């Protein structure tokens, strides 16, 4: 009884995930159900203008965790995705185009090109971002684990409505994790989800 009492905090501590940044938790993302591709049918035929307003993501974006690697920690390499907010915007544009939407992207403050008439503007501000590769012991392929928190606004004919959404994905390494994150975000926006945070696996 005494031994198990002493060991309980030990076991809890041992389960904490190694991470290079406070707030990163790759083990929690690994525990998510595998994320299935989501067709954003709600966006078919719509006109959308995408724009990035902020990028507060921090280096490193994530690490490669290999449970078979020697050492105290399974971190095997670290990565940084430069301009993560723009990469996410481009993935969202691809997902919208695939869904049948007419999509445009504004990279600069005053773009010279014309947006389609009646287009809804979606402003994206990346608040937090992590993207890891994790190989479980004995498995040949790794999992891509991603999380993004996006604060932004949808500006349409009925005015502007803010949103603050967190999306999480767990996909096979052959899949596109950014595209999966963008699809999750668009599914939340397309379903008219309230402006709130919350994980989505």
């Amino acid at each position: 009884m005494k031994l198990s009492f002493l060991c309980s905090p030990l076991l809890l501590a041992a389960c904490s995930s190694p991470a290079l940044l406070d707030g990163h938790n790759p083990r929690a993302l690994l525990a998510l159900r595998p994320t299935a591709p989501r067709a954003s049918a709600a966006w078919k035929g719509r006109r959308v203008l995408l724009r990035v307003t902020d990028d507060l993501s921090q280096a490193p974006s994530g690490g490669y965790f290999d449970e078979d690697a020697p050492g105290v920690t399974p971190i095997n390499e670290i990565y940084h995705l430069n301009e993560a907010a723009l990469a996410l915007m481009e993935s969202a544009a691809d997902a919208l185009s695939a869904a049948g939407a007419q999509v445009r992207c504004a990279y600069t403050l005053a773009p010279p090109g014309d947006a389609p008439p009646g287009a809804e503007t979606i402003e994206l501000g990346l608040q937090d971002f992590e993207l890891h590769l994790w190989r479980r012991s004995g498995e040949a392929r790794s999992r891509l684990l991603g999380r993004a928190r996006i604060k932004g606004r949808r500006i349409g004919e009925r005015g502007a409505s803010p949103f603050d959404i967190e999306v999480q994905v767990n996909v096979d390494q052959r899949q596109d994790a950014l595209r999966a994150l963008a699809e999750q975000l668009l599914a939340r926006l397309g379903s008219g989800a309230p402006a709130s945070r919350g994980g989505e696996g």
Partner: protein
Amino acid sequence: MRPVAICLLILGLGGCAGTAGVAGSIERDAAPAVRESLWQPHGCQVSVRVIDRRAETDKGEDARPHTRLFLPLIFAWYSSKGGPELLSSEQLDPDPPTSLSRLVKRIISESGLVSLEGPAYQLEVELLRYQSLSYREGSFFLFVAPGAAIITDVSKSSWPVGSALLRLTLRDQDGAEVAQRTLNSGHLASFEKSDEEPAPPLLSELAADALRESLSQLPQTLDEMLTAALDEGLEETPTRFVVARLSRDRRFVQEIEAEVLSGRILSNDWRARRGPVFARPGDWVVAPYTADGAWLSAPGYRALLDALAKAGHVAAFEENLSAARYLATPAVEGQK
């Protein structure tokens, strides 16, 4: 010596390790090379105000390795720690806002971006992040027996990372926001460097590298902000233009400078990106700046596209509204 005393001695020595180092300076370490007189000056004045907001956004502020394993037994203690460790901000710069303010003023002055006449704007520079982190892991073992003690305290740092984040807000005389941009950079040490214990100088270098990359984009980013604010058009049709594509990581850009009328190529170079991202990586577009690096206003860019169309070039807006995709060059004798 009693075991407790040995333990305290070793812990004390361990605590002293790594605190030595030379204080860095943003003004000295993160100064980018500025190409003088690259820009035609905007007819306005710009004052600079730097605000230190690192405490609000720095996730690494309280970074320290967390205990991953703790085993307190009667005669032996074992603990294992791992997690991010932050280089103290004093080692990066004792007074970042003052140092950064001086450097930003110097960059704007050297770039020749603004005249000293016309409407007054204020450039608010929020320092949101300037830090170096590494991953520290270690273990501590203590075994005590009557008359004897064994202590091991081993720790190692790896994966050093430097990052810098600035938010630029251009305000008019009434304090109203005119334009806003974020400059965000992160630098990882090379694999060879990360094999070894990162010394404080290397760590501060990484933070300075990241900030230097952000500041190297400051003149053209401010140029874009002022152009959007003043909505200045081209006074005369340019005779040269740039077709550009970004590298996969968007850090570099391949620029082909050519004559508008003949399509003759004047130069073809890869260089570090010196301003805002304007297209997807790999897409050949008509750059939204002149061959001299000056940012084009929306009317100025459309005038350039008209001039290119008249000369036989083919460029069109597709998904990207900020830069037209370059599709075909006019046929020139002796050039493919």
